[in-house]
C-alpha cells in the first residue's frame, strides 16, 4: 500500500505546517523524514490541504520541503503483558532501554518497542475453539508478577466472533499468534497477546459504569478520615510550590491499598522521578511482601523533555490504567502535575493562533480536563467482576492562587479537593492539606457523625483562634480557650502525620477508627480546668503522649502501655464517666 505523504511548508517552534493531497484524519500520527531519522508528530488541525502537526521532538534542522509520511493510525500505546515495572516516556518508549542504546542523553527520532519482544510468557488458555467471544473477552492468562494478566480479545474488535484456533498452554512471546477468531461474515483475524489502542479514546469494553463508594485507603489520616477518596473516584491536590504536593503523592503511591499504581510525572523535576526510580525497587509492599516496583508503572516526561510528548503522557498513563481495569483490578493513577499538561496545551494553542481564553489557556481547557478525569471510574466488567481507575492529579497554580483557570476547571469535575496551604507548610504542618477549605464527596472510613463532630470542633477552634489574634489570650473565655486547645490538639495528633516515621507514615483503617474514638473522648469531654496556663500544660502533656502513641506499633506492648497512660491522664481531669465518651451536637 502506498503511504500517504506530505511536504513541510512552515515551521514554528514544535509545530509544523504540511501540505498533502492525501486523506488524513485528525490526531493521526505522521513521521517527518529527516535524513535517516523519523520524527513522530500528530495532526492537530486540518484546513483543506494544509495540516498543522505538533512534533514530539525538537524541530531544529528541519526544512521546508521535508517529507512527512502519515501512518494512518492515531497515537497509540501497546497493551499486553510486560507493562508493569516499566519506566516509559510520554510516548511509551522504555527509558532504561533508551539509555542503554543512546547513553546519557535522549536522542530524537528513536522509538523502541514498549513491550519486550524477547520475553516468553507462560500462556494458559481459558477459552476453547468454538467459543463465541467479543472485545475484552479473556482468551487465556499469563502470570505477570503477582497478577494473572488476562490476554483479551482486542478492544477494537467490537462485533461477535467465534474462536477458530487457540494455542495450547506454553511459552510464547507477545507478538506470537495465539488465537484465530472469525466474525459472522467469515473474516478471520489473528490475535496475539498484545494489541494497540489510541490513547485519546477511553476504553469502554465493560458492562456498565457504577457510582464509586468503597474508600481507596491511602493510610494518610487526614485523607481517609476527613477527605476520603473512593475507588474509581477522582481528586486533585492544588498547592503552591514547596507545599509538599509531590511528597504527598509519593507517600500515596507507596501506601495506597490498590493493585496497581501508575505514576505520570508530567513536566516536573527529573530529580523527583529519580527518587522514585531508585527507591521503589528497594521498598517492600506490605500487602504482598514483594517489591513496590512490581505493581508500578512510571510514565515520565519531565519538564525539559519535548512539550508535545508531555501532553500525550497523561493520556498514555490513563490508557494503561484502563487496560488493567479490564482485568478486574483497582488502579490508581497519580498525575503530577496536570498544570504542566494544561500549559502544554496552551503552548500549542498559541502556535495555532487560536483565540485565547483566560490567562491565554485555550477555550477547550475545561472540557479537556473534564474528559480526562471522566476516564476514572468504577466499572462492572462483562464477567461480572469489578475494576476501577482512580485519578489523583496535582495542580500547580500560578502564584499559589486557586482562582486560576486550571484549578477551577479541575475543581468542577473532581470528587475530592485536597488544597495545600502555604501557611500550613510554612508552619511545618504536614501533610499541608487545609482541613477546612478542602472537601470530599466520598464516604469516610470513620462513621460520618463522628467526623462531623470533630470537624465542628476544628471549625469552632479556628474561629476562636482568629478571635484570639485580635483580643489576645486574656480576652478569651476559658470555655473558648479549651475549644481552641482541643482543635489544636486534633490538628497536631491526627491531621498532621510524619511521613518519615516508619509507623506513623501509614495508619491502617482499623487503627484510624480506634484512635479516633479516644480522640473523641478528649474533644467531647468536659475537663476540670480553670485557668489557661494549667489547661495549656495539660494539653501539651496529652499531646506528647498521643504523639508517642502514634509512633508505637499497632497493638504492640508499647502501644497498650501508652494507651493506658493516656487514658489515665484523661481520667485525671475529665469529669463524668469515660463511657459517655462524646456528646454529639453540643460543643
Amino acid at each position, binding site marked *: 500500500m502506498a503511504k500517504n505523504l506530505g511536504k513541510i511548508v512552515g515551521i514554528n517552534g514544535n509545530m509544523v505546517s504540511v501540505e498533502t493531497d492525501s486523506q488524513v484524519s485528525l490526531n493521526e500520527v505522521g513521521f517527518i523524514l529527516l535524513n535517516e531519522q523519523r520524527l513522530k508528530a500528530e495532526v492537530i488541525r486540518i484546513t483543506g490541504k494544509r495540516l498543522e502537526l505538533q512534533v514530539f521532538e525538537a524541530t531544529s*534542522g528541519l526544512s*521546508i520541503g521535508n517529507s512527512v509520511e502519515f501512518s494512518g493510525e492515531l497515537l497509540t500505546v501497546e497493551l499486553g503483558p510486560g507493562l508493569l515495572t516499566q519506566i516509559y516516556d510520554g510516548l511509551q518508549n522504555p527509558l532504561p532501554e*533508551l*539509555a542503554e542504546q543512546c547513553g546519557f542523553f535522549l536522542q530524537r527520532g528513536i522509538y523502541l518497542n514498549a513491550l519486550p519482544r524477547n520475553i516468553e510468557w507462560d500462556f494458559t488458555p481459558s477459552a476453547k475453539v468454538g467459543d463465541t467471544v467479543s472485545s475484552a473477552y479473556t482468551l487465556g492468562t499469563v502470570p505477570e508478577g503477582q497478577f494473572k494478566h488476562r490476554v483479551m480479545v482486542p478492544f477494537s474488535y467490537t462485533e461477535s466472533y467465534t474462536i477458530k484456533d487457540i494455542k495450547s498452554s506454553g511459552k510464547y512471546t507477545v507478538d506470537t499468534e495465539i488465537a484465530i477468531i472469525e466474525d459472522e461474515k467469515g473474516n478471520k483475524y489473528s490475535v496475539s497477546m498484545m494489541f494497540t489502542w489510541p490513547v485519546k479514546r477511553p476504553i469502554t469494553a465493560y458492562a456498565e459504569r457504577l457510582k464509586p463508594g468503597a474508600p481507596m485507603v491511602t493510610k494518610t489520616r487526614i485523607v481517609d478520615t476527613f477527605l476520603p477518596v473512593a475507588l474509581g473516584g477522582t481528586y486533585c491536590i492544588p498547592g503552591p510550590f514547596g507545599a509538599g504536593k509531590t511528597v504527598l503523592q509519593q507517600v500515596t503511591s507507596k501506601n495506597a491499598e490498590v493493585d496497581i499504581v501508575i505514576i505520570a510525572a508530567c513536566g516536573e523535576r527529573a530529580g523527583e522521578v529519580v527518587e522514585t526510580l531508585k527507591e521503589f525497587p528497594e521498598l517492600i509492599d506490605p500487602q504482598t511482601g514483594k517489591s513496590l516496583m512490581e505493581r508500578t508503572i512510571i510514565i515520565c516526561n519531565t519538564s525539559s*523533555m519535548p512539550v508535545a510528548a508531555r501532553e500525550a503522557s497523561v493520556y498514555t498513563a490513563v490508557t494503561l490504567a484502563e487496560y488493567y481495569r479490564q482485568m478486574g483490578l483497582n488502579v490508581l493513577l497519580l498525575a503530577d502535575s496536570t498544570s504542566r499538561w494544561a500549559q502544554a496545551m496552551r503552548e500549542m494553542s498559541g502556535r495555532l493562533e487560536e483565540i485565547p481564553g483566560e490567562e*491565554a489557556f485555550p477555550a477547550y481547557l475545561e472540557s479537556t480536563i473534564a474528559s480526562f478525569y471522566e476516564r476514572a471510574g468504577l466499572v462492572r466488567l462483562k464477567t461480572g467482576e469489578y475494576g476501577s481507575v482512580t485519578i489523583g492529579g496535582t495542580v500547580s497554580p*500560578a502564584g499559589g492562587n486557586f482562582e486560576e483557570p486550571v484549578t477551577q476547571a479541575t475543581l468542577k469535575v473532581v470528587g475530592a479537593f485536597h488544597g495545600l496551604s502555604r501557611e500550613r507548610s510554612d508552619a511545618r504542618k504536614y501533610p499541608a492539606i487545609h482541613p477546612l477549605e478542602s472537601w470530599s464527596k466520598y464516604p469516610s472510613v470513620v462513621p460520618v457523625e463522628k467526623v462531623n463532630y470533630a470537624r465542628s470542633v476544628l471549625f469552632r477552634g479556628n474561629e476562636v483562634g482568629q478571635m484570639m489574634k485580635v483580643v489576645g489570650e486574656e480576652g478569651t473565655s476559658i470555655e473558648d480557650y479549651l475549644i481552641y486547645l482541643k482543635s489544636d490538639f486534633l490538628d497536631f495528633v491526627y491531621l498532621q502525620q510524619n511521613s518519615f516515621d516508619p509507623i506513623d507514615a501509614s495508619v491502617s483503617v482499623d487503627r484510624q477508627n480506634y484512635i479516633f474514638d479516644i480522640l473523641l473522648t478528649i474533644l467531647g469531654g468536659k475537663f476540670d480546668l480553670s485557668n489557661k496556663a494549667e489547661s495549656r500544660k495539660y494539653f501539651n502533656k496529652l499531646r506528647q503522649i498521643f504523639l508517642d502513641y502514634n509512633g508505637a506499633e499497632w497493638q504492640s506492648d508499647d502501644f497498650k502501655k501508652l494507651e493506658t497512660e493516656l487514658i489515665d491522664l484523661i481520667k485525671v481531669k475529665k469529669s463524668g464517666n469515660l463511657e459517655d465518651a462524646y456528646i454529639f451536637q453540643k460543643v
Partner: protein
Amino acid sequence: MRKVYSKIESISGNVISVSAEGVNYNDLAVVTSSHGESLANVIRMNGNSVSLQVFSGGRGVSTGDEVRFLGHPMQVSFSENLLGRIFTGSGKPRDNGPELTENMIDIGGPSVNPAKRIIPRNMIRTGIPMIDIFNSLVESQKLPIFSVSGEPYNELLSRIAMQAEVDMIILGGMGLKYDDYLSFKETLEEGGAMSRTIFFVHTAADPIVECLLVPDMSLAVAEKFALGGKKVLVLLTDMTNFADAMKEIAITMEQVPSNRGYPGDLYSQLASRYEKAVDFEGAGSITILAVTTMPGDDVTHPVPDNTGYITEGQYYLRNGRIEPFGSLSRLKQMVNGDTREDHRPVMDGMIKLYAAYKESQEKKSMGFRMSDWDEKLLKYGALFESEMMDLSVNIPLEKALDNGWRILAESFTSDETGLRTDLLNKFWPSEKESR
C-alpha cells in the same frame, strides 16, 4: 559556496524576514549591513518566508542588506582554551584574546535521560554558614537566589565563585550592568580564581537577542566539561532579564501572551535550562545557582513563580542576608546527615530559637514587657545575625558549627536549647571556652 540573499522583506524590532530556500529550522545566518556583520538564527518558516532574530538587533539593518546562511545551528567552541576567557552572548571574545573556532559544539542539546540520573549525594561547601549549615548546596542541584534590585546578589555570587569547592566556574551574565561585570572580573582576578572561570557576559547595553543565548552557551560548555569529569558550577545572573528578553522577542513575533506579557512557554523554556543540572555517573556534574530578581519583591510574579516550581529550593536574599525562613534546599537532607553528628540538630535548634527571637522582637516593638527569656532570645538573635547570617562571615562548616554552640552557650543554659542530652554532653562548651 552558500547562496547569499539580498532582499530582506520585513524588519520588525530584532526580527527580519527574507525569502529563501533550502534553509533548516534554527540555522544560523550572517547579516551584513553597513554597520557590520551580525549573526541571526531562524525562528519561524512559512513557505519561502524565513524569519530570523538578529543577534545584534534590527537597528541599522536595511532591506537591501545581505543574508548568508551558514547551514548549521548556533555553536560554541569547546576546549581548555576557554578557561580564563570572557565572551559575549554570541561567543565573541570580550577580552582582547583571540577568537576561538576549533571544536565547535551545538548549543541547547537534548535533555538527559531520567533513567540515567542518580540520587545526589555530595555537598558543595561554600564557607557561608547560612548555606553550609542551614541549607546545604548539593552537587547537581539547581537553586535560584530570589532577591530584589539593590541587594548584593552579585557580590554573593562572586564570593561563592571564589570559595565553592568545584573544579570550575562558568558565569553567565544577562543584562548585567557594566560596572557589575567589571567587579565580577576584578574580584575573580584578585582572588586568583580567573584561571578556572569562563565568562559569557551580556551587558545591559548589548543587543537583547544575545541575552537569550547566554544560558545555552554557558550550559553547553558546562555539559561538555562535566562529561569530561569536571565538577562545574554555573552561575547565572539575572534570569529575570533572560525571561524579559524572551518576552520581548515573543511580543515582536506576535505570540499570544499568557501572564503579564510573558509567553506561554515560559515554564518550559526556564525548565529546559535549569534541568541541565545533573550528576553524570562516572563523570562530572553541573550545579546551577541563578539569581532571579523579583520585580516589586513579589514572589508570585511569573518569573520567580515558575522558577520555584522548577528548582530544588531557593535562597532568599534580603537586607544583605540569606533569610533563614523561606530559604530552602530541597536536597539538603541527602547530605547533611553525614557531615557531623550535630549538624542537623544544630540546624533545627538554632532556627527554632531564631523564630522565637523574632516573636520576642515583635513583642518588644509593640511595647510589651520583656521577660528574662525574651532578653535571652534578644541577645541570641543579635549574635546569630552578626556571626552567622552576616555575609562577610567566611568559615568552614565545622568551625561554623562550633560557633553555633558558642553562640548558644553565650545566650542560654544548656537545658533551654531543646537539644538532645548526648549532644549537649559532647558539644556544649565549658565555661572557659565561651567568652
